């Protein structure tokens, strides 16, 4: 059976199930076949139970007990645990680690009937902006194999863009879902901090991490959030705020839009800047109220991020000592030698770099000069956003300073690599939500993304405007 699986949305799949055009099993098979032929290296592990899960979903649909997500295949970043399946985090240190439980967010999607198709490649422990820091090799951008897919959720973004899955889960700590979404030309949502449980997502920087969906349409990210969001007693930082109905239709033009001038400097790629400016003009011409605003600490956000994040990384990654799980050493070694051996052999270059950076930042002599100062900048950035969100509902910015760059272009220069997160990190520092969607292509036919930012727990506004922009582009 031949199924056209180009850019399928959840609604399209459900309609096809209803019309008996294909079953979940047939659809899952079609994606698995695509994965077999694929050259992007998007997956680390294929779920051998995927077809069994799909059959189960078909049964459930037949019994009339299906949800909107039942039977929909899902690719999951390999940093999120799914019981019984390997969870490597893109690291040698967890090369053979098998998840002993399932992340809450994923469990909720499973309970709704989704089919886990496999685990996707990513930068080691979600640290990177190009997916070149994976022990399992880089992921190639499906739009142009000589380019990076972005990172750290590069495999998840590429999987959606290459039609290897209709929806995927990633994690976003400083832009790790939004930046690859922009580079691969798909939709990526970073929920507000606390909206989705982090239980079962390996911690990189606990005060910044969120599990986040990628898909072909804005509505699909809303469907996924609707099911995964909400309080979880297993994550003390998950919010017990009620989860609103995200799919409800709302009038987009009632939203007051803001353009933060600091995001439009001359340092960004001209084509990206022009595409976003054109988008803003198009919205104005449709009658949207658009106001220029200022987020004056924007220029300090990346510096604060590269202090807060490594500090948390160095603490969180202390747990990888080879005693409880993962890579082991010669049992005759002393404890100190054991630790040194496991960690030196198990971690890659970028992970070691960030651990050492964090160790430095948290060390007695520098804590006040760096970590404490960064926490103060965090306060300022949060205040910046709170002030602006009194005047406007949604901010519109470029998602990235350039389109996808060449493989290898920035691997020798960490600072240049870090600068590719410049427009995305602020949302994580402030805990607000952000949505990236494709709006144009550059001269090399590479996707350009726009970023929409809204206040904490105002994802509904992102969906409303995102939907509107998406429909305009579809014509």
């Amino acid at each position: 059976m031949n199924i056209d699986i180009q850019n399928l949305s959840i609604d399209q799949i459900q309609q096809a199930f209803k019309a008996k055009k294909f079953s979940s099993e047939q659809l899952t098979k079609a994606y698995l076949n695509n994965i077999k032929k694929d050259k992007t290296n998007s997956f680390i592990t294929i779920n051998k139970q995927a077809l069994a899960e799909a059959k189960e979903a078909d049964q459930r649909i037949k019994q009339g007990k299906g949800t909107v997500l039942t039977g929909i295949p899902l690719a999951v970043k390999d940093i999120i645990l799914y019981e019984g399946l390997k969870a490597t985090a893109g690291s040698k240190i967890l090369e053979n680690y098998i998840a002993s439980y399932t992340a809450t967010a994923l469990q909720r999607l499973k309970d709704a009937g989704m089919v886990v198709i496999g685990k996707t490649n990513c930068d080691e422990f979600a640290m990177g902006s190009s997916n070149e820091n994976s022990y399992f090799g880089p992921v190639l951008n499906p739009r142009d194999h000589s380019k990076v897919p972005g990172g750290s959720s590069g495999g998840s973004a590429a999987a959606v863009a290459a039609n290897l899955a209709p929806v995927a889960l990633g994690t976003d700590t400083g832009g790790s879902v939004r930046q690859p979404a922009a580079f691969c030309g798909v939709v990526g949502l970073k929920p507000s901090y606390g909206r989705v449980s982090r239980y079962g997502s390996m911690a990189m920087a606990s005060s910044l991490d969120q599990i986040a969906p990628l898909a072909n349409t804005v509505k699909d990210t809303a469907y996924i959030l609707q099911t995964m969001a909400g309080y979880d007693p297993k994550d003390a930082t998950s919010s017990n705020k009620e989860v609103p109905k995200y799919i409800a239709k709302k009038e987009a033009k009632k939203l007051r839009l803001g353009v933060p001038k600091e995001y439009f400097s001359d340092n960004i790629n001209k084509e990206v800047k022009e595409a976003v400016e054109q988008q803003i003009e198009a919205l104005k011409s449709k009658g949207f109220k658009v106001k220029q605003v200022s987020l004056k600490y924007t220029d300090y956000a990346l510096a604060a991020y590269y202090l807060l994040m490594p500090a948390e990384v160095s603490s969180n990654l202390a747990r990888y000592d080879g005693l409880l799980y993962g890579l082991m050493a010669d049992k005759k070694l002393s404890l100190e030698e054991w630790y040194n051996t496991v960690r030196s052999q198990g971690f890659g270059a970028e992970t070691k770099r960030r651990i050492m950076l964090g160790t430095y930042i948290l060390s007695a002599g520098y804590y006040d000069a760096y970590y404490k100062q960064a926490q103060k900048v965090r306060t300022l950035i949060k205040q910046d956003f709170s002030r602006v969100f009194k005047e406007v509902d949604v901010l519109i910015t470029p998602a990235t300073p350039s389109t996808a760059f060449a493989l290898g272009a920035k691997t020798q220069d960490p600072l240049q690599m870090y600068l590719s997160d410049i427009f995305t990190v602020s949302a994580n520092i402030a805990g607000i939500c952000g949505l990236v969607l494709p709006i144009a292509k550059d001269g090399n036919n590479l996707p350009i993304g726009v970023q929409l930012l809204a206040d904490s727990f105002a994802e509904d506004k992102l969906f409303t405007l995102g939907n509107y922009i998406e429909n305009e582009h579809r014509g």
Partner: protein
Amino acid sequence: MKLNKQEVLNLAKLAKLKLTDQEVNMYQQQLTEVLGYVDKINSLDLEKVKESLTGIEDSDVKPRSDIAEDSQPSTIKQAAQLKEGYVANPKVFK
């Protein structure tokens, strides 16, 4: 802020990492460069600003009550050495 070789080695020791000479050279240069960049926050006057440790000080989120709950023994099944239900580690004293 320039890191010297000895400082890089000290950091590696604290982080339980064993570095090759080549890695020491590389990290010395790269960490110096990154620290030079992040230092820009020190150009701000932050004296009167309160720190935000978690970013969610103003929210409804709080830790659960400190009451013991069952743990999941399955999480230690993959330990390097298990003895009578406990995780054993290499010798600390000779």
